[in-house]
C-alpha cells in the first residue's frame, strides 16, 4: 500500500504551489507559464492514479488518511481521507484540470500567468474540498475556492462579467455561512469538528431540521437547485470557457457531495421529514428548467440550464431513498437510486465539461455564442461536429454514453418510489432531447448561411486531442460503468445505513 506517502496532501498542495510559482515565474513569459502549468496538472493527474489503483473496494471506511493536529485549542485537525464517494470526484478534478490548461493554451492572451495560476490554485482547493474530513478544514477549502473563481470570471469573462462574478460570490458566500454556524453549533454540542464525529453524534429533531436547512442553503446554491439557481446562467455565460468547465464539471458536484457527506448522514431524521421538499425541487428543476433551456438563444446559457436540469437527477436520486425504503421495504432500490445519483455526478462532469469546451471551440473562432449566428457548421468542421454530436447525444442520455447510465438508474428507482416521480423524471428524456437536438440542428446542420461560418477552420491537433479524450471517457463510462459503481458500492451501502438510522 502507498499509505505512508501523503498522496492526498500532494494532490492539494502540488497544484497550489505550482500555481503560485506560475504566478510569479511566468510574468512576462507566457510560454513558461503554460508549460509549467501543464507539467503541474499532468503530474497531479498522474499522482492521482495510485488513488484508484490502491483503493480498497471492500471497505467503507476512509482510506489514505492523513491526520495532523492543526488548532488543538478547538480540536481542529488537518484530517484528510477518501472513500468510495469522494475518490471518483478527486480523479474527476485532476482530470478536468488537464483539460482546462490545454483548452486555454492558445486562447488566453491577457495575463496568461494569472489565468493559469488561478486555475491551478483552484484545482488544489477543489481536491481539498473532496478529501477534507474536518468540517472546518472543509469550510476553509470551500470558501477559499471563491477567491480565484471571483477573479477568473471577473477578469476574463464576457461583457457582464462584473455583475455575474459579484452575484456568484455573494450568493455562494451567503449560502455557506449558515453551514458554518451549524458546524459551530455541532462543535459546541460534541466538542469535535470531525465530520465523522458529526455523523455519529445524536441530534434532536429541531436541531436536525435547522442544521438540514442550513446545509441546504449551502449545497442548494452550489448545485444549484431551483429557485436559487439564478447565479449559474449568469456566471456560466460570462465566464471564460475553462471557467465554465470548472464550474460545471466540478464546482456543481461539491453541492451534491455535500448532501452525501453532510446532510444525509448527519441529519437523517430531518432528511426523512423534508425529503419531499428536495424531491419537489428536483422535479421542478428537471422539468421546468428543462423547458427554460428550450427557450435559450445563447448556447452557453442553454447548456447551463441543462446542467441545472441534470443536477436535479442527482438530488432526486439521493433523496428518493426514504420513499423507496418505505414502499418496497428493502435497501436494494435505494442503493440503485443513490448509485445512479453518484454516477450521474461523474458523468455530468465529463459531459458538461465537453459541451462547454465544444462551445468554446466555436466561440474562439466566431466570438459569438448566439445560436442564430451559426448554421451548417458541419460543412466546414466535420471532425468537430462528430465530437459535438457525441457529446450532445450523451447530454440527451442516449444508451451507450455515460449520460444514460446515471439517468436510467435514477428514473428506475423513481418508479419504485412513486409512479408520479418516475413519470416526471422520465419527461427529461423528451425535454432533454428536444433542447439538445434542436440546438444541434440549428448550429451544426442546415445550409451555410453566414459568411463567417464559411471561414471556419476545423479542429487543430490540440483541440482534437481534448475532444477525443473526452469522447473516449464518455463512451467508456457509458458502455462499461461497472468499475465506477464497484468503487462506490460499499460506501453507498454504508451511507444508506447512516441515512436510514434515526439519531433522535
Amino acid at each position, binding site marked *: 500500500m502507498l499509505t505512508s506517502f501523503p498522496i492526498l496532501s500532494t494532490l492539494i498542495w502540488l497544484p497550489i504551489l505550482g500555481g503560485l510559482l506560475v504566478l510569479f515565474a511566468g*510574468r512576462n513569459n507566457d510560454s513558461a507559464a503554460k508549460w509549467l502549468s501543464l507539467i503541474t496538472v499532468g503530474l497531479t493527474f498522474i499522482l492521482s492514479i495510485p488513488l484508484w489503483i490502491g483503493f480498497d473496494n471492500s471497505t467503507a471506511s476512509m482510506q489514505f488518511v492523513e491526520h495532523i493536529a*492543526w*488548532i*488543538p*485549542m*478547538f480540536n481542529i485537525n488537518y484530517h484528510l481521507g477518501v472513500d468510495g464517494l469522494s475518490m471518483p470526484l478527486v480523479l474527476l478534478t485532476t482530470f478536468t484540470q488537464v483539460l482546462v490548461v490545454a483548452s486555454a493554451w492558445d486562447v488566453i492572451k491577457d*495575463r496568461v500567468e*494569472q489565468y493559469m495560476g488561478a486555475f491551478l490554485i483552484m484545482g488544489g482547493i477543489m481536491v481539498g474540498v473532496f478529501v477534507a474530513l474536518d468540517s*472546518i478544514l472543509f*469550510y*476553509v*477549502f470551500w*470558501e*477559499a475556492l*471563491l*477567491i480565484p473563481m*471571483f*477573479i477568473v470570471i*471577473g*477578469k476574463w469573462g464576457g461583457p457582464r*462579467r*462584473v455583475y455575474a*462574478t*459579484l452575484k456568484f*460570490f*455573494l450568493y455562494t*458566500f*451567503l449560502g455557506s*455561512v*449558515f453551514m*458554518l*454556524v451549524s458546524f*459551530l*453549533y455541532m*462543535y*459546541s454540542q460534541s466538542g469535535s469538528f470531525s465530520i465523522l464525529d458529526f455523523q455519529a453524534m445524536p441530534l434532536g429533531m429541531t436541531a436536525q431540521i435547522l442544521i438540514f436547512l442550513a446545509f441546504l442553503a449551502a449545497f442548494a446554491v452550489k448545485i444549484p437547485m431551483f429557485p436559487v439557481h439564478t447565479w449559474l446562467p449568469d456566471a456560466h455565460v460570462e465566464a471564460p470557457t475553462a471557467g465554465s468547465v470548472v464550474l460545471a464539471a466540478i464546482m456543481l458536484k461539491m453541492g451534491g457531495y455535500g448532501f452525501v457527506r453532510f446532510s444525509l448522514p448527519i441529519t437523517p431524521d430531518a432528511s426523512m421529514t423534508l425529503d419531499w421538499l428536495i424531491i419537489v425541487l428536483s422535479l421542478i428543476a428537471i422539468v421546468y428548467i428543462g423547458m427554460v433551456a428550450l427557450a435559450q438563444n445563447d448556447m452557453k446559457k442553454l447548456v447551463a440550464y441543462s446542467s441545472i436540469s441534470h443536477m436535479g437527477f442527482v438530488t432526486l436520486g439521493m433523496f428518493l431513498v426514504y420513499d423507496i425504503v418505505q414502499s418496497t421495504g428493502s435497501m436494494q432500490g435505494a442503493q440503485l437510486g443513490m448509485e445512479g445519483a453518484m454516477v450521474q455526478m461523474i458523468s455530468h462532469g465529463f459531459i458538461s465539461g465537453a459541451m462547454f469546451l465544444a462551445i468554446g471551440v466555436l466561440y474562439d473562432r466566431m466570438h459569438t455564442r448566439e445560436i442564430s449566428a451559426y448554421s451548417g457548421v458541419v460543412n466546414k468542421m466535420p471532425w468537430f461536429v462528430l465530437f459535438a454530436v457525441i457529446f450532445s447525444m450523451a447530454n440527451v442520455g442516449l444508451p451507450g454514453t455515460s449520460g444514460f447510465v446515471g439517468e436510467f438508474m435514477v428514473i428506475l428507482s423513481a418508479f419504485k418510489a412513486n409512479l408520479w416521480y418516475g413519470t416526471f423524471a422520465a419527461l427529461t428524456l423528451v425535454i432533454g432531447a428536444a433542447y439538445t437536438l434542436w440546438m444541434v440542428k440549428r448550429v451544426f446542420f442546415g445550409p451555410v448561411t453566414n459568411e463567417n461560418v464559411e471561414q471556419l477552420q476545423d479542429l487543430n491537433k490540440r483541440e482534437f486531442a481534448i475532444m477525443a479524450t473526452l469522447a473516449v471517457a464518455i463512451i467508456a463510462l457509458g458502455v462499461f460503468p461497472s468499475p465506477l459503481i464497484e468503487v462506490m458500492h460499499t460506501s453507498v451501502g454504508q451511507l444508506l445505513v447512516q441515512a436510514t438510522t434515526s439519531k433522535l
Partner: protein
Amino acid sequence: MNFVIPAFAPAIPEMALLALISFILVADTFWSKRYKFATYYATQISLVVVGYLILSSFTTTQVITFDGSFVRDSFADILKLFTIAISMGIFLFSREYLVQHKFFSGEYFVLGLFGILGMFVMISAHNMITMYLGLEIMSLAMIAMIALRRDSAHAVEAALKYFVLGALATGMLLYGFSMIYGATGSITFPEMAEIIASGQADSVVLSFGVVFVVIGLAFKLGAVPFHMWVPDVYHGAPTAVTLYIGTAPKIAGFAMLYRLLAEGMPGLIEDWQSLIIMISILSMVIGSIVAIAQDNLKRLLAYSGIGHVGFLLLGVIAATPEGYSAAMFYVIIYAITGVAGFGMIIALSRTGKEFDLISDFKGLNVRNPWLAIMMLIVMFSMAGIPPFVGFWAKIVVIEEVVKAGFTWLAVLAVIMAVISAFYYLKVVKAMYFDKPEDDSPLEPVNPSLTWAVSFTAILLVVLGLLPSSLIDLCYHSLKAL
C-alpha cells in the same frame, strides 16, 4: 498611617517609556535641525527597549502594586507587546507619509509615544482612577495628532469633533464611575466585584452606573450609536494619524472593556450583557450597510472598523474567559489588518496625491500586480474569507457566541459578514476588473514600504494557515488569571 514604598518593579516598562519620551521630547528640539530622522529612530529604539523590558520580565502570575491601582499580568503583557509591535509598524509607515506630505516633525512621534503610554496605563489599570488617567493620556495625545496639520481645515475639524464628543463621552464615563463608587464604596475592580456580588450595593444606582460606563466604552471603541465621530475623524485626519487611531487604541479599548466589565462588574452581567448585544448588533448592521455607499477608502475602512467592533463585542457577550480570549484574538488581528490596509494607502500615496479613493485603486493589477495581490489578501482577510486570518478571528468569536447559547446572534453576524463582503469585493473589483485611468507602473516612493506592506499582508496568510499559536497565546493569557 504608615507610608509604604510601593513596589516599582511591575511598572518599570511604563516608567522607562515615560523617561524615554521625556528625553526624546527635549532632544528633538536639538536633533531636528541637524538630523531629520533622529527622533524617528529614537522612537523605534525606545519601543524596542520597552518591548525588551516587558519580555524579559514576562509574568504569568498577577502582580498588583501602587496600592491596588496597577496590575501586571500575562493579559497585560501580551496586549502591550502587540501594541508595541503594531506601533512600530505604524511609525514605519507614518514617517514616509509625513515626508511625502511635507509636515514631517518630531511631534508626531513624541505624541504617538505618549499615546502608547496612555494605552499601557489603560491596559494595566486596576482601578477606575488609573483607567481614567490612561484614557486621558491617550485621548489628548490623539487629539493633538489629528490636528497636527494645522493648515488643513478637515484635520482641525476632525480634531475638534473628536475633542468635543470625546469630552462628552468621558463625562459620561466619569459619571458612571462616580455612581458605581457611590454604590459600592470602592474604586478597585476586584473589590467592586466582591461588593456587587455580595448584594449590598444599591442595584438601581449600579444599573445607572453601568449604562453610563457602557456608553463611554462604546464611544471610545467607536461602536454604534456612539460612532458618529469615527468616519469624520478617520477621513479628516492625515492618513498617518488615521493609521494610528484606527489600530493600536482598539487594543487598549478592548483592555478597558475587559478590566471594567469582566473584572469590575461581572455580577452586573444582566445589566450590561443586553446593552452590549444591542450595541454589537447595531455596529455590525451600520458598519456593513453604510460602508457600501462609501467611495473613499479611509471612510470605508472607518465603517468597516465599526463593523469589526461589533464582531469583537460578540466575544464579550459570551462573558466567559474563552469569550474574552476570542475577543482578544479578534482585536489583535483587527489591528494587524488595519495596519496593512491603511499602510497600503500610505504606501501608494505621494506628494500631492492622497490615494485614498477607491477609484485610485482602479487597475492596480496592471500598474503593480504584486501590491494588488497584497491588497486582495488584506481585503479578503477583513471580509473573513479563509484561508486568511480574518476568518479565524470571526470564527472564534462566533463560536463563543454559539457556545453561550446565542445561535440567533451568530446567524445575524454571519449575514452581516456577507453584506460587508460586498464592499471589500468592490475594492478588489476596482483593482482587478476596472481599467486604470493611467496605466503607468506605480511603485511606492520608498521601496521599503513595499516590503512593509508585503510583510504585513503575508503575515495575514501565515497566521491564516497556522493560527494555532496565536490562538493558544490569547486563550492561555486569560486562563492563567
